[in-house]
């Protein structure tokens, strides 16, 4: 064994450990050597093209440049990922593909967008992404919301109005939904009466006497509900008060209640505790184009009224 090894040995390093343990000194494989030289050459070229070496309080900028528009002027500067990103946002392949549609949508009226299948297809696909990134956390990815917390946007019942313009204003400026708590103003009996009245408005079976008493509270000074909900109880979009005559509930969890008592309790709870909710304003976070696309998208979610 030992003999054979020494016979075939090309070269050894000359070190000997524990008496006879030796180390071969074969040349590196050819491909490896060339890969090494190639990477050295790559580094040299890289140093010339890109920002690399610190020099004093500055650094070599490299010879590659990137051009983009800034403030109406064309700026040409040395290559870096930030400049590259601006270029990509302005003239990248994907950006240009979208820009053609974006320009069309931005300059079109809502009526024109809604009646043009091509623009609508674009709006739906961009809108879905925007909605998922910004709105779904509250309103749900399909727009169904969470009863009591975040309104359903697909039911075509609106607190703040359902025209595209209304929805645009809602998204851009946000809203504070506010109804005072009545736990101090109304006692338990009165709460039950007015809750009966509210349920009667959407045709639920309720106690007639209670309803009559509730009517007085709702439409009189005691409750003053009509100031915000109107005498017809259809709600006012200027204060975002709910329409109480449809069977659609945004806050009171009536649909989930199994018996009449549960329904009453759900409505009473809202009246007792009041409502305080906030829809954030998006005008500083999203561009005007994005808000316009979202307004059309959300309008469509609600069936488009």
């Amino acid at each position, binding site marked *: 064994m030992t003999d054979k090894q020494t016979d075939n040995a090309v070269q050894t390093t000359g*070190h000997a450990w524990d008496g006879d343990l030796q180390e071969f000194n074969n040349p590196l494989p050819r491909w490896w050597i060339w890969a090494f030289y190639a990477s050295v050459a790559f580094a040299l070229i890289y140093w010339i093209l890109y920002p690399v070496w610190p020099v004093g*309080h500055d650094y070599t900028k490299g010879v590659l440049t990137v051009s983009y528009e800034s*403030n109406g002027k064309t700026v040409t500067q040395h290559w870096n990922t*930030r400049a590259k990103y601006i270029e990509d946002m302005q003239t990248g392949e*994907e950006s240009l593909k979208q820009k053609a549609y974006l320009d069309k949508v931005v300059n079109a009226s809502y009526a024109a967008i809604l009646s043009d299948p091509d623009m609508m297809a674009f709006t739906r696909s961009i809108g879905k992404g925007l909605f998922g990134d910004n709105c779904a*956390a509250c309103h749900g990815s399909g727009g169904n919301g969470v009863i009591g917390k*975040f309104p359903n946007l697909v039911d075509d019942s609106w607190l703040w109005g359902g025209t595209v313009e209304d929805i645009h204003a809602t998204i851009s400026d946000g809203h504070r939904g506010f109804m005072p708590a009545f736990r101090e103003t109304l006692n338990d009996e009165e709460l039950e009466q007015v809750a009966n009245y509210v349920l009667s408005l959407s045709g639920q079976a309720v106690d007639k006497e209670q309803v009559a008493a509730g009517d007085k509270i709702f439409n009189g000074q005691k409750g003053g509900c009509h100031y915000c909900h109107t005498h017809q109880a259809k709600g006012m979009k200027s204060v975002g008060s709910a329409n109480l005559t449809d069977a659609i509930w945004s806050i009171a969890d009536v649909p989930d209640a199994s018996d009449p008592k549960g329904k009453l309790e759900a409505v009473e709870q809202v009246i007792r505790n009041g409502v305080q909710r906030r829809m954030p304003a998006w005008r500083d976070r999203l561009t005007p184009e994005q808000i316009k696309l979202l307004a059309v998208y959300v309008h469509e979610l609600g069936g488009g009224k």
Partner: protein
Amino acid sequence: MKFSHESIEINAGLLIVLTLVAISIGGLVEIVPLFYIPGTIEKVDGVRPYTPLEQAGRDIYTREGCYLCHSQMIRPFRDEKLRFGHYSLAAESQYDHPFQWGSKRTGPDLARVGKKYSNAWHVQHLKAPRSVVPESIMPNYPWLLENTLNYSDMADRMRALKKVGVPYSETSAEYQANVEKFGKAKADLFNINLADENLLAQARAENFDGDRSRLTEMDALVAYLQVLGTMVDFSQYDEGYFAEFR
């Protein structure tokens, strides 16, 4: 014995030391210049240290390991801009110790989550993420609402941060420097001697957790989340201004 390849190879201690020297050269050449090239931290208005309440929230963020699933570093790519907003600046994490850039995104990046959602949403989402986002795999953090915020050592925590370069003030000279740099209203917030009062005042004024009767860990964490990425007003700067710093 003359100093040779062999003398290094047969001396384990020396081998380790020289190996460390060899590999640290690579790191040092890359990192050290960043400390003296002035453009490393972009010149930008608005970035400030955290208020005591926000800082307490930040400590809870690190304690709970939120960084294991959330990065705070938006990279300069189109898809990131469209989803999260403007790319992160070095300047924006200059007062972060330790920084929370992260490298793992099980959940979304949080660098610009501030003001995106309402306080009520954050409270609900942290308590029970699936009650608002049914698809979520984020854990529940119900104890944040139950635990009273412990801020007894807030001043000490600010002192520790001051040691690593955050400009909280303790002497009147330091305070004056802050007045010049951040304006009086802000400088008052960074005064270590007023840490407790400032913390309580902010919690009272903004009532982040929606419960006025108590000061909870939720108050602090939501205060922190709501300030993330909101300090710089990007509309003030030309496209390309920040690209000059790289």
